[in-house]
Every structure is written in structure tokens, then in C-alpha cells.
């Protein structure tokens, strides 16, 4: 531990920008009448954070605050992704929160501070910052899920989420403290060194600690068997909050899992591989099968997110840098396709909440139906969309690691889940409309959906733009 210096503050500039903007919004909350001020502020802060994370990395990768966090390409990749998700969710919230009674400024403060937590989590290389970052995300998420005043379902979802997530956090903390007791250090690299030096890889207590930490993280990203909160929380939360949980939180959780897997507990741990393969296989299978039965769009996207997390975790099963890079690519593309799909759901309002609402959309609003089709194709994993590239890299990394059965399962499940995505496409294009033509989307929403659509298309045609950037820690 070398201690912290003032110069370290420059390395957390993206986090400082977001925190500063959140503090300003808290101070002026009572004076803001217009809904657009906090949105503009949040988008500007996110853009500044992206610029800052680029500026910070213009020097070589380095650790800050005495090795508690690191500023490397991996952290930068996820920080940019988190900031992008934050900006898009802020744009989606303009229409998504209309008439919900949620306080605008406080809502954006929570989005900003949750993003700070995500940025700290993705750059954490020490159990202390890792845990605190995750807690900051979940604390903001509890309040965001319960922020809509007039819906009892929102309160119920928030309480359920709070109880289950507290339990998961406690389990993870228990695992972290056991690891500290065994290795005498909290830094990821120190843990790895101590495990190698003292031959703890097969120690039963170390395995228990590993399982506890993995279970806590699996809960945070909503992987089966720790997924039961996901559909309830997404359905109870307002749609932009659900979009935020599905995009930013998952990306940060996956980033943290990636660092723990690759650095702390090492790629050589067979127990870790078994845990990850189990999480991936169960999530993909359960998510893909249960998604078939859903008629509520938020629940449908929730089960879809469970399956997609399974695919993303598949990249990590290899335990190699290439595998971690595949997971990064997956997280990146998934964030944009799911935000796009949530954007269309928000734009259609009450009509977009259920499957039936999509009947005959193509004849009424061909443009909206077109982008929705694009996101559905990407979620399925059809070539020329980013979804195909994402699935291709994770499945090939699983095959490379020798998990052929897992890869076959993933392909089969992606065919199974295609039924539900294609059912929406059929409803949109091959049925007569039953409800009146939906109103035009506001500009903010259209911009957000357009950005998501462009990333999804460009990622499918020119995947190297992202895969070259996604370099494992």
C-alpha cells in the first residue's frame, strides 16, 4: 500500500464529474421546474465522463489510491459503456417517466450516483472498492425501483428486491471476509499470489468463499439460480429504470465478475470453471425457456436478459484473456440492443406493455416496427446484427475452452428463444392493427433509439471496431 496522493484524483475524474453533477442536482432540486434540465445535465455529465475517461487513459495504465482501483483499458471500456447507458437511459426517461409522479431531479441524481458505483466497480482491483462499488449500485437501484409513487407494484418490487439483494450482499461479504482471513490481503492480485503460494486452490474454505462471492455476483447480474428477483423488479419498476438495470448494472456486474475470475481466483481454478459453466448453462436454458411463456413486455425482456447474461458468462468460462474479451464484446452489444428494445416499449406507452399491442404496428408506424425488428433480430443473434457477433465470440471462446456441450446448448437455446422474438415480428408485420396508431415519439426518445440502432447495425457489419477495443485486463 503506497498511500493515496492528490494526483490520484485526476485518475478518478469521470467518477468525480458524475458525483459533482449529482451534488449540484441535489442542491438545486427544489428550484427545477422543467423536466428537461436534469436530463440535459445528466447527458452532459455522461459525455464529459466519456471524454475524461479517454483523457485519463492517454497515459499508460496505472493504479490509483495505493492499488485500490486501476485505470486500464478494461476499466475505460466499461466506463464508456456505463456512461453511454446512463445517457441513453436519461433520454428514455423523458417519455418513460411521464405522469409517473417520480421526482425528476432526485431520479437523475440516483442514476448518476449508480453510474459512479458502476465505474468504481469496473475499475476496482481490491475487494474493498469492489464491494463498495457494488453496494452503491444496488442502493441506488432499490430507490429507483420504488421511485414511482402511485404504483403499489413498484413498492412491492422494491421491497422484494431490497430483501433479496441485502441477503446476496451479505453472502458476498462473508465470502470476501473468509478470503481475507485466508490470504491476509484484499487486493485481487495479492489474493491470487497468496492462493498460488500457499496452495489454497483446493482448500475447502477457500472454495466456500469463492462460491459465496460468485453467488453474490450472480445475484447482481441476475444469473440462474439467483434470478428470481429480476422479472418482479423489472415489472414493478418504471420502464426506464428496468432498462437501466438491464443495461448498466449488468455490464458493471459482468465487468466485476470478469476481473474476479481473471485476476483474483485465477483461470486455473477448476471449481471456478464449474461454477461459471453451471451459471452460464442454467441461465441460458432457463432464460430461453421461460421467455416463451411471457406476454408482458417487461417480463419478457427480463427473462431475455437472464438468458443473455448466461451467454455473456460463457465467455468467462474459458478463463482466458480472449474469453474475457468476448464477454466484454457481448456486454457492449447487449447494452445497446436491450436499451433500444426498451426504448420502443417506452415509446409505445401503454400499448407497448403487452405483446398484443404490437399487432399490425408495421402498417401503422413502419419506421418503429423496422427498428424493433432490428433489435429483435439482434436479441436472437441473426447475422449482420451485433447480436450475431456477440454470440459468435462467446460461443467460439467456449468451444476453444473445450466446453462443446455448453456451446451446443447455447445454440439450441438461441433457436428456442427465437420463437418469442419472431412472434413479436410476426405480430407486427402479419396481423391487422387492432389499436389506434400510436403517437409520434418525442425527439429525445428517437435520438436514443437511433443511437442504439446504429451501434447494433454497425457492430454487426464492422464488429472489429468493438472487438479490437475489448482487451481483457
Amino acid at each position, binding site marked *: 500500500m503506497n498511500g493515496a496522493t492528490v494526483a490520484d484524483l485526476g485518475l478518478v475524474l469521470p467518477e468525480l464529474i458524475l458525483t459533482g453533477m449529482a451534488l449540484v442536482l*441535489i442542491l438545486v432540486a427544489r428550484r427545477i421546474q422543467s423536466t428537461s434540465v436534469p436530463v440535459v445535465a445528466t447527458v452532459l455529465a455522461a459525455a464529459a465522463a466519456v471524454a475524461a475517461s479517454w483523457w485519463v487513459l492517454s497515459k499508460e495504465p496505472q493504479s490509483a*489510491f495505493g492499488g485500490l482501483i486501476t485505470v486500464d483499458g478494461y476499466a475505460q471500456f466499461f466506463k464508456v459503456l456505463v456512461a453511454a447507458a446512463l445517457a441513453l437511459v436519461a433520454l428514455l426517461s423523458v417519455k418513460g417517466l411521464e405522469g409517473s409522479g417520480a421526482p425528476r431531479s432526485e431520479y437523475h441524481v*440516483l442514476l448518476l450516483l449508480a453510474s459512479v458505483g458502476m465505474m468504481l466497480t469496473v475499475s476496482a482491483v481490491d475487494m474493498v472498492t469492489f464491494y463498495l462499488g457494488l453496494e*452503491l449500485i444496488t*442502493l441506488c437501484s432499490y430507490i429507483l425501483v420504488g421511485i414511482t409513487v402511485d404504483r403499489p407494484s413498484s413498492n412491492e418490487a422494491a421491497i422484494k428486491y431490497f430483501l433479496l439483494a441485502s441477503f446476496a450482499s451479505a453472502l458476498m461479504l462473508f465470502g470476501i471476509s473468509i478470503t481475507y482471513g485466508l490470504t491476509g490481503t484484499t487486493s485481487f492480485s495479492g489474493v491470487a499470489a497468496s492462493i498460488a503460494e500457499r496452495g489454497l486452490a483446493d482448500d475447502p474454505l477457500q472454495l466456500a468463499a469463492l462460491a459465496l462471492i460468485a453467488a453474490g455476483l450472480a445475484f447482481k447480474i441476475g444469473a440462474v439460480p439467483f434470478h428470481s428477483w429480476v422479472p418482479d423488479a423489472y415489472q414493478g419498476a418504471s420502464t426506464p429504470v428496468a432498462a437501466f438495470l438491464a443495461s448498466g448494472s449488468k455490464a458493471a456486474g459482468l465487468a466485476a465478475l470478469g476481473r474476479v475470475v481473471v485476476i483474483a481466483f485465477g483461470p486455473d481454478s477448476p471449481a471456478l470453471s464449474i461454477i461459471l459453466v453451471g451459471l452460464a448453462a442454467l441461465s441460458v436454458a432457463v432464460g430461453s425457456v421461460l421467455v416463451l411463456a411471457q406476454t408482458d413486455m417487461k417480463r419478457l425482456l427480463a427473462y431475455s436478459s437472464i438468458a443473455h447474461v448466461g451467454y455473456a458468462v460463457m465467455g468467462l468460462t474459458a478463463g482466458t484473456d480472449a474469453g474475457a474479451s468476448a464477454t466484454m464484446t457481448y456486454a457492449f452489444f447487449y447494452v445497446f440492443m436491450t436499451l433500444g428494445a426498451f426504448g420502443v416499449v417506452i415509446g409505445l406507452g401503454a400499448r407497448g406493455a403487452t405483446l398484443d399491442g404490437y399487432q399490425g404496428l408495421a402498417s401503422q408506424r413502419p419506421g418503429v416496427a423496422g427498428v424493433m425488428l432490428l433489435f429483435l433480430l439482434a436479441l436472437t443473434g441473426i447475422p449482420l446484427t451485433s447480436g450475431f457477433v456477440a454470440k459468435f465470440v462467446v460461443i467460439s471462446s467456449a468451444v476453444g475452452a473445450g466446453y462443446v456441450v455448453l456451446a451446443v446448448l447455447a445454440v439450441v437455446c438461441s433457436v428456442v428463444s427465437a420463437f418469442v422474438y419472431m412472434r413479436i415480428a410476426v405480430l407486427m408485420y402479419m396481423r391487422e392493427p387492432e389499436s389506434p396508431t400510436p403517437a409520434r415519439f418525442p425527439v429525445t426518445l428517437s435520438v436514443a433509439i437511433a443511437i442504439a440502432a446504429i451501434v447494433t447495425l454497425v457492430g454487426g457489419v464492422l464488429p472489429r471496431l468493438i472487438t479490437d477495443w475489448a482487451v481483457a485486463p
Partner: protein
Amino acid sequence: MEFETIVFYALAVATVIPAFGVMMAKDIVRVAFWLLASLSGVAGLFIMLDADFLGVTQVLVYIGGILVLILFGIMMTHRDPVLVSADDDRRRSPFTGLLVSLMTFGALMGVILGTGWNVSGGLANGKLSGEPTAAPLGKALLTDYVLPFEIVSVLLLVVLCGAAYIARRGKDEEASNA
């Protein structure tokens, strides 16, 4: 028997017996007071292990803060502070609970005794240094661990905002109902 050993067993008894009280008592106010005794015992154990700061924090946070909060919670919400009704007792068999807790105890003890803990410093040779820990902890929090310290500040800010928002919301609803 050494003096330290006697103190340890005294504190252990002072922790475990009230813990049984927490489990057996049906009145939540009694549970709260048994918890007070048990947590004080834990604070004593911390101080015995040279973790004086942790011991004092235990008294301040758990006994001073959380317990008072529980009592306030009881005072403000329930008129009939009974934790379990008689029906619940008849339906549940105590043996399942006993079995699960004994199995957990066995597994934990087995693992704890069978593990080579990485003990360093004064603990390694079985002697405690007797140095107070508050000063080094405070120094570490504001130097090496200043980042986690600040993250906790942001976290508490979120908690404060959330609690204020949720509490105010309840008040607004009451006002609109009345």
C-alpha cells in the same frame, strides 16, 4: 487457569446465554433487551482480542444505534409487540430447525478448525500487542483507504436521499387521504 481464559469464558457465557434468550423470547421488546446483552458480550470479546476500536463501535452502533432504533420502531408501529403467534408454534416442528442449525454448526466448525488461517503480526505467536487500534485505523482511513471512505460518504448520501424521499412520500399520501 489464566486470568485471560477466565475472562474469555465469562464473556462467552455472557454472549451465548442471551443469544438463547433472543431465540426463545416471544415478546419483541424482550428480544431487543436480550440482544443488548448478547451484543455487549460480543463487544467485550472484541476488546479482549485487542480490537478496542471495533469493541467501542459495536457498543455505539449496535447497542446505541440499532437497538434504540428497534425499540423506537416497536413504539411507533406495533401496539401488540408479539413476535410469533401460538398457531405458528404448533405448525412448526423444532427438530428441523435444530437439525439445520446443528448441521451448519458442524460444517462451520469443521471448516474453521481444518483451515490454515493466514495470521500475521502479534497474533501469530499467540500474544497480543496491547496497542490501541483507533489511531492507526483513523490514519489508514484518511490516507491509504481514503477512496473507500469517500465512497461510503456517497453511499450514505444516497441512503439519506432515499430515506427522506420514501418517508416524505408516506406523509404526502396521508395528507392526500385526509
